[in-house]
């Protein structure tokens, strides 16, 4: 059969999960990571990252709204997906997605953003006219109480929500790792480390994403970058990445040393079909290079301009590395036969339901949503300039 090397079970020729399922952990990872970065400011009072607090929340929301779409597109019967809520099979890890998702979306993220923005929404409601007055009115739930005591209450509830939100973000992405890690039939996936590796890679990608978005938004708005802020974010990125890298290496070393029945097949796969995406893109370009860049910026005091270039480069490479990691997990896990005697090939289509085109559209969509959210709820200050610039003063 074309594209097959060695022996595979006859039913294994076609890959079951395509590039859309690669997007699913990638996007939920960005959500969890962005939220955790936002929580740093709120719960742990890290003042330096304040300029990115609201941006991170809105980014998390934009990506979270898109997160179920690749799954929906991939289903053979998307019209039946509601059954996952109505008649869930409680033993199924996948059945819990809807509940974890709704909890996170509605209870944590939307509520937290609403509480944080309530004062702004009410002020906009008062100031605007026509259609937007109705819109902001509805968003404020027609309550215009922004007295000091009401705002204080908002803040207290918001803080409590963030405290609930951090474990929820952990749950959201750890759970995505569990979907793969709990499949005992597939040795490439089946490891209890999977949820933890997924979680840390999520934090890494979320932080890198917000770092890049902050640079882009500063550039678009022609405001100076708050160096204290990006320095701190880069520091967190470095530490999170170190943990993530250590976990992945632990997994790798464990596999190499144990060398169980699947080892030869997986080893061969990594050295051939996955060489570019795993060794070159994920490990060297996407992990080691950004780690060295970020490590250098911790050790050596560079000029501001050099640091900015360094951070943008490290952030971009990190995003590529994490995407490659998702690719290698999802696609790599389906390239070898469960007989461990052969390999198949992934053929990416373009303009089909699960092809490259919908994947590209799905990757652009969160940025469109984010743009709309930013228009609706500007994350920078209360009209008088940047929160970051205030923090610097």
């Amino acid at each position: 059969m074309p594209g097959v090397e060695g022996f595979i079970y006859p039913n294994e020729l076609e890959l079951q999960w395509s590039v859309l399922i690669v997007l699913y952990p990638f996007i939920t990872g960005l959500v969890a990571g962005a939220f955790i970065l936002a929580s740093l400011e709120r719960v742990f009072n890290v003042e330096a990252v304040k300029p990115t607090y609201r941006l991170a929340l809105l980014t998390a929301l934009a990506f979270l709204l898109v997160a179920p779409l690749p799954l929906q597109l991939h289903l053979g019967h998307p019209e039946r997906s509601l059954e996952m809520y109505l008649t869930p099979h409680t033993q199924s890890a996948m059945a819990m997605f809807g509940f974890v998702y709704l909890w996170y979306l509605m209870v944590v993220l939307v509520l937290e953003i609403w509480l944080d923005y309530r004062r702004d929404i009410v002020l906009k409601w008062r100031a605007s006219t026509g259609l937007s007055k109705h819109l902001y009115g509805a968003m404020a739930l027609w309550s215009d109480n922004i007295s000091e005591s009401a705002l204080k209450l908002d803040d207290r509830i918001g803080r409590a929500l963030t405290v609930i939100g951090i474990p929820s973000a952990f749950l959201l992405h750890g759970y995505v790792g569990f979907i793969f890690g709990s499949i005992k039939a597939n040795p490439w996936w089946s490891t209890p480390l999977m949820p933890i590796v997924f979680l840390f890679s999520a934090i890494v990608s979320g932080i890198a994403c917000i770092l890049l978005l902050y640079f882009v938004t500063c550039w678009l708005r022609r405001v100076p970058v708050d160096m204290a802020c990006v320095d701190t974010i880069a520091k967190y990125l470095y530490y999170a990445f170190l943990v993530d890298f250590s976990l992945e290496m632990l997994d790798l070393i464990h596999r190499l040393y144990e060398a169980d029945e699947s080892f030869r097949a997986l080893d061969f796969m990594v050295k051939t079909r996955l060489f570019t995406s795993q060794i070159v893109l994920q490990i060297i370009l996407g992990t080691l290079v950004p780690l060295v860049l970020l490590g250098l910026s911790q050790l050596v005091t560079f000029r501001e301009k050099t640091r900015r270039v360094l951070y943008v480069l490290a952030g971009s490479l990190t995003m590529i590395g994490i995407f490659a990691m998702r690719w290698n997990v999802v696609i790599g896990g389906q390239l070898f036969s469960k007989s461990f005697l052969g390999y198949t090939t992934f053929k990416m289509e373009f303009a089909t339901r699960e092809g490259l085109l919908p994947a590209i559209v799905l990757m652009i969509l969160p940025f469109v949503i984010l743009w709309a959210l930013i228009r609706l709820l500007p994350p920078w200050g209360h009209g008088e300039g940047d929160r970051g610039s205030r923090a610097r003063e």
Partner: protein
Amino acid sequence: MDQDRRTFLGQTGKLLVLTASAAIAWEHVLAGRPEDAPNYRSTDHWWGMSIDIEKCIGCGTCVRACKTENDVLREEYMFRTWVERYVVDPADLDHPQVDSRNGGYDGFHEREVLDPNLKMFFVPKLCNHCTHSPCVQVCPVGATFESPDGVVLVDKSYCLGCRYCVQACPYGCRFIDPRTETVDKCTLCYHRITRGLTTACSETCPTGTRVLADLKDPKDPIHAFLRENMVQVLKPQMATGSRVFYNGLDGSVR
């Protein structure tokens, strides 16, 4: 009889209600879902299959019969049952030469190996109807389920087509039927066995390699098969409680 009117009416009323509910319940039992046969009781059976490797001649009749009986697409990568041909160097069990061209549908023409140092045999495969099925466990809506008589089935009117079960099956027994966009797999010819018939593959096997087994029937030959042979299941390390029992399964088989 010292029974007053009140007690009599009370007891009669209770009897009437009980009879009515029992009648309704009995009607449901007799309606026979999932099976329609009036004499079939799913709780009386516990299905499985025995496969005698030494008897298999690799003719592929079972594969053809299955595709015909169950309207399986003739594609080279969609099988409810298939046959693999193993050529093994006994000194190197880790590297068997395996092929299953068109799932064995056309039969294997090379039925002997010339090299006297190698051994060759055929392994028919199908869904193992596991007692602890990973596929049943992962289905998000319960469209894949185990019937009371131990057969793993799919409700195609309910399946989302998420393919999680295909990933979870260690044996590669599942595939997506493009006509329905739902998962497909061996049903152990459930439409036949509930009518007292055997499976299409067992029915047509010329050598009696594959035999449908009812583990709850004390007279079923499966008990002698399990007792008298050294029996193994596929991938026992997966602990799925497989109910397809192989006699003469070589250590090289995956």
